[in-house]
């Protein structure tokens, strides 16, 4: 069991005290002292309500908190939540904690959880994010139920979101994953998900841990591994997704974690995605997606300006990445005024596919390719916001579906570029 090496001796001792479990809840943290107490209580209530007869453990993997987060996790006792849950556990519910590093690293955190799950022979595992401020006790059984009772291997969430939240998901990650891998998973990259012990063990043995660049989006890699390994996948509706972080400056890291991770997986997964045609829906519990329509203040003008400046200033970089016709078209729309500006779906899909092919060929530094996508994404975001300004939830869904079909229609274009590589 080579993965034991990622676990410290102290943590191994804690795991040995716990023994084998049925349910494992992974909780990666970093300075979450303000909310972690109530989150652990919520999780405990969720376990007591949903799995009172099962052996369960809550494992906190901490990335070097300085506010006493790990102590708060282990300090919450089951007696605190019994009155609230109104049910009683028939088994001991353990809460243990380990520090995996002095700074947060989501890949290392998940690897620690996977290694612990394998060691404890957990049948079903769920990872929950302490950043989700509206976590409910039902989330535990909603995510774990399909794994534990219906023998699914991966459960990804669906959320109720504002129509303009998660634009990178709706305009790139979801449609491209769907078109290439053939499965309609709305949130392939999410901080909340559940997986079976066998998927966890198989993924732990994969060679995705040696490359530091991939570790940043290891959750996405788990989803892709489940698809390519033909594991049973379903979606469960969790309710509203509330964000702690809303800053637009986070676009480049977000692109690295989504587009970068997806592009880097395409090479190894080529035998799988190259033969997939069309897409199938994944089994879903609850709503597939719910859209909130309340007004949201967005600086659209800035998005368009940053697109136009990007197209103009990065011309020399785009010449290495994009085809002449795509670049010419981008330069044409960059000159349009705010009223006339439109970044059509077909051009956006061609742009993304050409970026993916250039990433694979490594025409310039791969990280630079991902960074160069940021201003173009802002242009596409502007068009999406404009098109859906007065749209109903159904209209927004129709527009996203149209974009997905465009990604599927143009897939042969990506294949053609992929096969013509030098």
């Amino acid at each position, binding site marked *: 069991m080579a993965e034991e090496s990622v676990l410290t001796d102290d943590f191994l001792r804690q795991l040995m005290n716990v023994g084998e479990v049925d349910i494992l809840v992974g909780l990666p943290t970093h300075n979450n002292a303000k909310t972690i107490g109530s989150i652990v209580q919520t999780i405990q209530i969720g376990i007591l309500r949903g799995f009172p007869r099962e052996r369960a453990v809550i494992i906190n993997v901490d990335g070097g908190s300085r506010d006493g987060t790990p102590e708060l996790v282990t300090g919450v006792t089951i007696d605190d939540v019994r009155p609230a849950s109104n049910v009683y556990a028939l088994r001991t519910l353990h809460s243990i904690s380990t520090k995996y590093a002095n700074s947060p690293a989501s890949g290392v955190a998940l690897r620690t959880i996977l290694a612990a799950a394998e060691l404890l022979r957990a049948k079903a595992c769920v990872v929950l994010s302490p950043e989700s401020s509206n976590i409910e006790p039902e989330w535990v059984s909603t995510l774990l139920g399909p794994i534990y009772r219906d023998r699914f291997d991966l459960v990804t969430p669906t959320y109720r979101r504002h129509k303009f939240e998660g634009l*990178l998901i709706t305009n790139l990650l979801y449609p491209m994953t769907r078109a290439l891998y053939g499965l309609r998973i709305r949130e392939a990259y999410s901080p909340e998900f559940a997986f079976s012990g066998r998927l966890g063990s198989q993924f732990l043995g994969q060679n995705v841990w040696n490359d530091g660049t991939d570790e940043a989006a290891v959750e996405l890699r788990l989803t892709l591994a489940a698809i390519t390994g033909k594991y049973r996948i379903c979606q469960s509706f969790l309710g509203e997704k509330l964000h702690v972080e*809303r800053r637009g400056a986070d676009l480049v890291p977000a692109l690295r974690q989504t587009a970068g991770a997806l592009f880097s997986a395409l090479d190894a997964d080529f035998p799988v995605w190259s033969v997939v045609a069309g897409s199938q829906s994944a089994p879903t519990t609850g709503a597939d997606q719910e859209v909130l329509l309340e007004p*949201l203040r967005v*600086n659209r003008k800035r998005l368009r300006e940053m697109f136009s400046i990007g197209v103009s200033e990065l011309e020399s*970089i785009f010449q290495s990445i994009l085809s002449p016709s795509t670049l010419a078209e981008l330069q044409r729309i960059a000159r349009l005024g705010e009223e006339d500006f439109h970044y059509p779906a077909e051009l956006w899909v061609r742009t993304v596919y050409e970026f993916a092919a250039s990433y694979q060929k490594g025409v310039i530094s791969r990280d630079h390719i991902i960074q160069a996508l940021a201003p173009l994404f802002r242009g596409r975001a502007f068009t999406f916001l404009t098109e859906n300004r007065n749209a109903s939830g159904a209209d927004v869904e129709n527009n996203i579906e149209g974009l997905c079909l465009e990604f599927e229609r143009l897939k042969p274009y990506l294949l053609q570029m992929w096969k013509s590589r030098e």
Partner: protein
Amino acid sequence: MREMIISELSQALHEIARGFAHFLPRLIVMLILAFVGWVIAYLVKAVLRSLLRLIKFDKLSENAGASQLLTKAALPSATEVLSRFVFWVAWLGFVLLGVNVLGILGLQEQIARFFLFLPRLFVAMFIMFFGLLAAGFFSRAALLAGVNANLPSPRVLSLAVRSIIIVFVLSVVFEELGLAEQTMLVAFGIAFGALMLGLAIAFGIGGRDLAQRFLEKRFVREEKDNEDEPSPL
């Protein structure tokens, strides 16, 4: 008198003939060395060219910005230039070895100097190439960071980064070649100092408002910024 002239002339002719007879084999050796050297240099060129094509050296050179310089100078591709350069250096080396065999006094010392200079030339070329590569990489990184941070004039920032690295690389290259070391050191010091002073003055006085905006943006996070874009994830 007549016999004496004939005798001297005959002796001179003998000397020439003996000298020529002594020189001819060396000349033949030199020609053979030059021919063998040409064959070897040609083979080295062919092997190097294939190797460079295999490792996609032209692409590397394009990324470094060296290809653009070559195109502007109406020169062939980086692979072709490097393989031709190695051919000429290798062949010239053999020719000079041949010349050395001729035993011409004075030339031998120059030839020895040439061979001692070769390693420094290659190191200088190595530094130059990777310096250009670094300049291309960091100027592109600066350009992308400038554009994504919505900084004004990101291309100027990128150009400044490239210029600083190239000036530094050139000074190291000249020092390695041993060409006007003192002059280059002083010139580099003056150029670098002037550039930094110029940038400081331009940023601090000429672009006072710009500097203020930049620093505010960098260190004062306004609530307004949070409302600019919806969350991408």
